[in-house]
């Protein structure tokens, strides 16, 4: 049997066996990081805790829609957290795409899962190689409630420069991903 990353293994056990020990392992890894992300985004401690609770319960309840052939655990949880954050901040449900029908069998295409994991690892190393300035812009683009014009206000750089820098940073990420496709 091919072995996947720890996180994928935990998540598959949660999905297929409703394993609480594996859920605990996911909780211990992600809950403190989610809390860090939320508090950096301006959530107070109590509000952040509420969102962490909702997100981790969604991870348990929506586990059936986790598909390692398409997404890595952290990206899947990120997206749940982001939707929840928007629900809380804007008091509205964020529009989400129609879910794809899940395959009837829970057999995983091991090669595809490993492919996704390898691609994501490449992406991570690309992110790790960004210089601090680029890294900050990528973080703002992906994590902040910032629009491009808000970024301009914060850094005092002209909008055009920021836009092209974000694109350059992204392009590097994209190329890194594409090389593996």
């Amino acid at each position, binding site marked *: 049997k091919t072995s996947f990353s720890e996180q994928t293994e935990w998540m598959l056990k949660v999905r297929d066996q409703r394993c609480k020990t594996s859920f605990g392992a996911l909780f211990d890894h992600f*809950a*403190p990081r989610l*809390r*860090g992300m939320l508090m950096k985004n301006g959530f107070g401690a109590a509000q952040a805790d509420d969102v962490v609770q909702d997100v981790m319960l969604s991870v348990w309840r929506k586990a059936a829609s986790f598909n390692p052939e398409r997404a890595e*655990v952290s990206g899947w949880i990120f997206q749940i957290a982001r939707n929840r954050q928007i629900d809380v901040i804007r008091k509205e449900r964020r529009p989400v*795409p129609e879910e794809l029908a899940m395959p009837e069998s829970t057999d995983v295409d091991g090669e595809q899962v490993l492919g996704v994991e390898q691609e994501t690892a490449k992406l991570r190393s690309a*992110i790790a190689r960004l210089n601090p300035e680029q890294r900050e812009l990528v973080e703002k*683009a992906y994590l*902040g409630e910032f*629009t491009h014009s808000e970024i301009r206000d914060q850094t005092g750089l002209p909008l055009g420069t920021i836009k092209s820098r974000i694109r350059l940073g992204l392009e590097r990420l994209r190329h890194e991903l594409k090389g593996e496709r």
Partner: protein
Amino acid sequence: MTEISHHIPQSVLTAYVSGSLARPFALVVAAHISICEDCRAELAAHEAVGGALLDDFDPIMVSDDLRDRVFAGLDDDIVEPAPVKGTAVYPAPVMELLNGKAPKWRSLGPGAKQCILEAGEAGSVRLLQIAPGFEVPDHTHGGLELTLVLQGAFKDEGGRFARGDVEVADDDVEHTPRAEMGEPCICLAATDAPLEFKGLMPRLLQPLFRI
């Protein structure tokens, strides 16, 4: 699935993933991704960036109390509501706004109808239906406009747009999309500023029509 040639720009996908995209545009993105495999894959790549950043965050200790609360919730019998399904024309996120019913069309002049799905401070999102051979009424935008074709096709200065295609237009674009012959062209159109249709009715009446 027919070939889609005009997709969601990367910058718009990033904004969608980060949550900073205004709701009307987020609806168009969600509707497009519902019917476009390419952009669904692109979205997954962007979410992977978010996931990598999340994984990198400095952990902040979580109380045992919170852990206990979450574990206590695992055995709750929560029935998630069945997700809304899309139809051959309207993708799921649009059907959701229509509450599962057919759109109620209002005339916008000869050969053009609209059905406003949402209008608010963040902008508006509507369905437009243009009869074969007719033009979308002459208009300008105060900001960004994203248009997703759901049925039929139109042509304008930017090219040909058929089911699944997205046209991005901004403030200074004055385009005159014309529906092709065949089926009426139905589009989902989002703007972050009120659309101004010219010469259709006195400006004073516009608030009544919410355009």
